Each structure stands twice: as C-alpha cells, then as structure tokens.
C-alpha cells in the first residue's frame, strides 16, 4: 500500500550481482548503512543494526537474488515487526545491460498507524506517486505565501 513513501533511485555502472552483494552482505552493508550489521540474509531472520551509540532490530522480509531485498525496521523493541509498527525498506535491482544496474529503494510505513481502512485506501489511491511532490508543493506554497 503506497503511503507516506520515500522512493529514490540510482543508476550504478556495475553488474546486478555486484550491486546485490553490496546491498546484502553484512560486511558491505556496514560500509553504506549502519556502523555494525548483525544480520543473516534469509527471509524472517532477526538481526540488529548499530548506528553510533544507537541501534535497533531489523527483520528480513524478502530475499530474491539478485532482484529484490527487503527488511523491516524501526519497530518498538520487543514487538514483532508488522505493517503498522515498523518501516519497510525495499530494494529493487533492475539490470540495464551487462554492466549497468538501476537500484531503487522504497521506504514505507511512515503513515498514521491507526487509520481506518477506507481512509488508507483513499490515501493510497490519491498518492501512488509518493509524498515527495507534497513536499515540493508545500515549498511552492510557502514561497508564494501572502505576508500576513
């Protein structure tokens, strides 16, 4: 369900399997993500990520090499992560030829947690494009705001 979703993309001049290893090997993850990554890349595996003096649990959802990898994080300690109490991070890798890969990351779950379903659906319908445009629109509105 699209919601308050962050969606970003990058084109990498490397084959898809190299990109896959970069984003899924715990040793490499610590190069671009957390300071320390204790994680087995298997669906359902529980792990931990350390950021400076903070850290939190992570649970792997989808492992589909070399195309899809996702995990949930930012759920309350002691709770099982699920829709509604955590953020879902999804990586999608698309090869563009032998030496180029398009990598997309989508982070979702920032939405209000106790919306009624009808409300969620309406929101999803209206905002399949994500919320970045809302930020832009806000900025535009702020810029042309009448002095009070």
């Amino acid at each position, binding site marked *: 369900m699209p919601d308050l979703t*962050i969606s970003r993309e990058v084109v*990498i001049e*490397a*084959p898809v399997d190299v990109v896959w290893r970069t984003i899924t090997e715990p040793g490499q993850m610590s190069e671009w993500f957390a300071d320390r990554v204790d994680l087995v890349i298997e669906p359902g595996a529980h792990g931990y990520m350390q950021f400076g003096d903070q*850290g939190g649990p992570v649970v792997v959802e989808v492992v589909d090499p070399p195309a899809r990898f996702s995990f949930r994080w930012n759920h309350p300690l002691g709770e099982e992560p699920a829709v509604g109490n955590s953020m879902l991070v999804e990586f999608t890798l698309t090869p563009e030829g032998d030496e180029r890969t398009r990598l997309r990351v989508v982070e979702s779950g920032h939405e*209000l947690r106790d919306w009624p379903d009808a409300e969620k659906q309406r929101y999803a319908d209206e905002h399949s494009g994500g919320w970045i445009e809302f*930020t832009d629109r806000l900025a535009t509105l702020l810029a042309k705001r009448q002095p009070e």
Partner: protein
Amino acid sequence: MTTHIDDGLWSAIADPSRRQVLDLIVSNGGVSASWLAGRVPFSRQAVSKHLAVLERAGLIRRRKQGREVLYQIDAVRLDQAARSMAELAAQWDRRLVAIKRIAEAAHTQNKRRERHDEHAPGR
C-alpha cells in the same frame, strides 16, 4: 536510526483530507471553519476535527476577528515539517550514492583482476 519526526506532525500531515484543509489555509491566509467547509467534499464536523488535529500539531493557529475564529498556518512549523520529510529522502540519497561508489569500485577491481588472470602465465 532515521531522522526523528514527532508522531503528531506525521499524523497531522499524513491524512489527505487534512492536507487539503492545510493547502486551503496556506493558499488563502486566515480562513474560518465554515469557509473551509464550503470548499471540501466532507462535513463541517470533519473540518472541525481536522482543524483540531492540525492545531495540536502546531501547524496552524487560530485568531479571533470580531466574532469569527480564523485559522492561519504556522509557517515555522510547516517549514520544519517539509524539511523533516526532505531530510529522510536525502538520507536515502546519501546511502544510494555510497552503494554506487562501493559497487562501482568492486566492479572495477573485478575487471582488473580478470584482465590480470587472462595475462597470467599458465592459463
């Protein structure tokens, strides 16, 4: 772990109906609840509820003009909301750039190694 955004702010701007109300207030300055109710596809009661949430989140303020209560945005808080959201996206941009750098360096190294192996004696 990620940029901290207080829940009140998220909840307030996550709801599309509230964003519609917020948009109308931003574009039109001080407006009353009944003026808003005439411009949205939901009830006056719903407008009041949305206004209360927006006010609690600090995104709008009310002021009295004669017998009317007018709502206007709190620009500082709205700026802060926009910045918080942009910062979350920027965080992922930085991570993607790092992934790109690492993967491309690994690829360059792999190619160099392959070339080296091709020229190595005994192959």
